[in-house]
């Protein structure tokens, strides 16, 4: 199958104008995806939270409050954008965009279906790891430039947290890289033709999946790891001094981040757009094949997003030192041992479903 990215690469060699057209379409598509995800995820979060909390959630704007997010966006657009007098103005203005752009950049390499992927760099995993580390810059800058002690504490917490948990997330991802033998995200999905890495990796897969989910929750600053925001402690943390659209950008970045974390977890552990097959059940497998790959991807991602939301509306918040202890004393040693175990399995060719 020729992906959009490959086709574009071909075009790029032959015709510069066509390639520019491709870039424009990709840009618009990603923009539309961001807008759609923002609207959809915020609505879903509110409705799911409402279900957890024995209430209805948004019900007034549109049927079952579907248009609530639209109304909120308009309200945020019209709101006055307050910049604190003593703040570092340029940094204050730049920070929300930095936070959002870091996450949007990752959307470009996620394989949504066999043909739908904006770019397929052969170092996709490295790219994702590098860019997701960039998102902390937005939060740190936002916290620092606000010139507010609460924001500064939030920003500092966030920096320490994201940098720490990135190690665990990377260790978990490395396990899959060793098994699949490729850094390309599309390549990793293709390597799961015979079965998802989650259970094909002989136990280490489940451990690294759990580590990745926990580390991702911390990286995207969600409860129980939302100490950077901590609305009951830090009155909103890094975005205390933000209002209007700039606040909306931070808000949007959080939700896109959640999608990105789920999408990456799906891609490397849950087979990306690959359907779910059970060996021996021919009819079941045929039904599974009918469902288009993009639907598979969306469904799996939605499931993981639901798990993130489930976390958020069930758990209390960890304290900052407990958070660090969890990472450096528990998750990282397990991650390293897991990596070594995975290396042994890879060298011994000890697969569940040998190709």
């Amino acid at each position: 199958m020729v992906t959009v990215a490959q086709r574009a690469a071909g075009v790029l060699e032959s015709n510069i104008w066509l390639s520019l057209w491709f870039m424009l379409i990709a840009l618009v598509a990603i923009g539309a995806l961001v807008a759609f995800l923002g609207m959809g995820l915020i609505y879903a979060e509110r409705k799911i939270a409402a279900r957890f909390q024995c209430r209805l959630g948004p019900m007034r704007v549109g049927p079952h409050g579907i248009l609530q997010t639209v109304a909120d966006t308009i309200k945020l657009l019209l709101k006055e954008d307050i910049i604190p007098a003593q703040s570092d103005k340029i940094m204050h203005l730049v920070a929300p965009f930095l936070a959002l752009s870091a996450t949007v950049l990752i959307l470009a390499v996620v394989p949504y279906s066999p043909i739908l992927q904006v770019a397929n760099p052969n170092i996709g995993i490295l790219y994702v790891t590098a860019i997701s580390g960039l998102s902390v810059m937005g939060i740190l800058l936002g916290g620092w430039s606000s010139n507010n002690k609460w924001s500064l504490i939030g920003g500092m917490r966030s920096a320490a947290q994201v940098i720490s948990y990135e190690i665990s997330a990377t260790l978990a991802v490395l396990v899959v890289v060793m098994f699949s033998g490729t850094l390309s995200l599309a390549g990793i999905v293709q390597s799961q033709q015979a079965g998802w890495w989650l259970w094909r990796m002989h136990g280490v897969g489940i451990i690294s999946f759990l580590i990745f989910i926990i580390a991702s929750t911390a990286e995207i600053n969600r409860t129980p790891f939302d100490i950077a925001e901590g609305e009951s402690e830090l009155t909103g943390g890094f975005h205390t001094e933000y209002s209007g659209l700039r606040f909306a950008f931070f808000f949007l970045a959080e939700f896109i981040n959640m999608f990105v974390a789920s999408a990456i977890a799906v891609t490397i552990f849950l087979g990306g757009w690959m359907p779910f097959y059970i060996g021996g059940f021919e009819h079941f497998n045929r039904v599974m094949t009918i469902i288009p790959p993009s639907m598979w991807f969306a469904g799996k991602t939605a499931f993981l997003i639901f798990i993130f939301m489930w976390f958020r509306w069930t758990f209390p918040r960890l304290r900052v030192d407990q958070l660090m202890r969890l990472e450096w004393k528990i998750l990282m040693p397990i991650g390293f041992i897991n990596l070594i175990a995975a290396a042994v399995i890879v060298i011994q060719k000890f697969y569940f479903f040998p190709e």
Partner: protein
Amino acid sequence: MTAAIKTLDELLTSPTETNRSLSTEEYFLNMGPQHPIAHGSLKLVLLMDGETVRKVIPVPGFVHRGIEKMCEHLGYRQIIHLTDRMDYLSALMNNWAVSKTVEKAAGIETNGRIETIRTIMAELQRLQSHVLWWGVLGMDLGAFTAFMYAFRDREIIGEIFEETIGARLTMNYIQPGGLMYDILPDFVSKVKKLIAYLKPIIEEYDTLLSGNVITQERLRNIGILKAEKAIGLGCTGPVLRGSGIPYDLRKLEPYGAYDKVDFDVVIGTKGDCWDRYYVRIEEMRQSLKIIEQLIDNIPEGPHSVAKINYKIVLPEGTYYGQIETARGVLGVFIVSDGKNETPYRMHFRSPSFNNLWTVTQIVPGWRIADLIAIQSSLDLVIPDIDR
């Protein structure tokens, strides 16, 4: 021994030089009056070293309404409605404290029906207060779902109050010489239904929050309040009982119908946040037990022994009465000149005020997130501090 009184400015201009081994800069942080943890308007000035709190200076007074002064211009039955506004989560118990003191001073004898209904209402209020506290603690720790669960159940208790009293928050129900209204015929069956509903709900609270490993991590061994210190600071209520002192006025000097019922005084062992947490959770169960024993045995009789609109003039002298509210001992001190129907001087010893000062003793050295947990475990109501 009298301690030297320092103004806030003096306190602020003398940062401590302790524990600066890492040569970090200490800074002041204003927590409140507009802060989610204030649950009202309380300002805490914190001396911080990074995330660690070095010193806490409470600055109350943002909700001061001069209730004690206002009392000097009102008759004793009019004072009742002001007491609703002090600790609004135990309004009925505040009513009762004033009524009890005035009744004792004026020599008014109440009947069994009045005392039983008062006790049931007070325990319902204690339940309501503790349920709300549980939810707010969950919210402070970051579990917002607990807050919504608590409000769901608080509403159900509120409906019973609304039906009998006509108000959900500011009750103005218990007054010197009786009750404002009699209970409705279906009150008993409704309360029974409530007990049947709340019993499994408290177990649900345990599954939702108490058993959670993060909650335990956040509360256990945090903010240990030693028993001597708690007594020294004048703490009462669940804060004192959490430190292991079985001081409960309902048992020690029984009033109302508490001498007729069988219930346990719950105490903690260590005095950490978890003990204070669990004392309140257990107190909810004990309250249910008390209501259960009384609800079938409400004696017959009038709901008020005093005539409507009569004026109470207390004989000259000073009077003190106290009661165990949801937060601790509420003392009412009345000075009467024996001539007017208004008190010459009225003072309230409110539990939240004394409990507040524990933060100055137990918070230093803990992190800012622990301060949240500690303050939440103290269950402060800010209008009760300021009055």
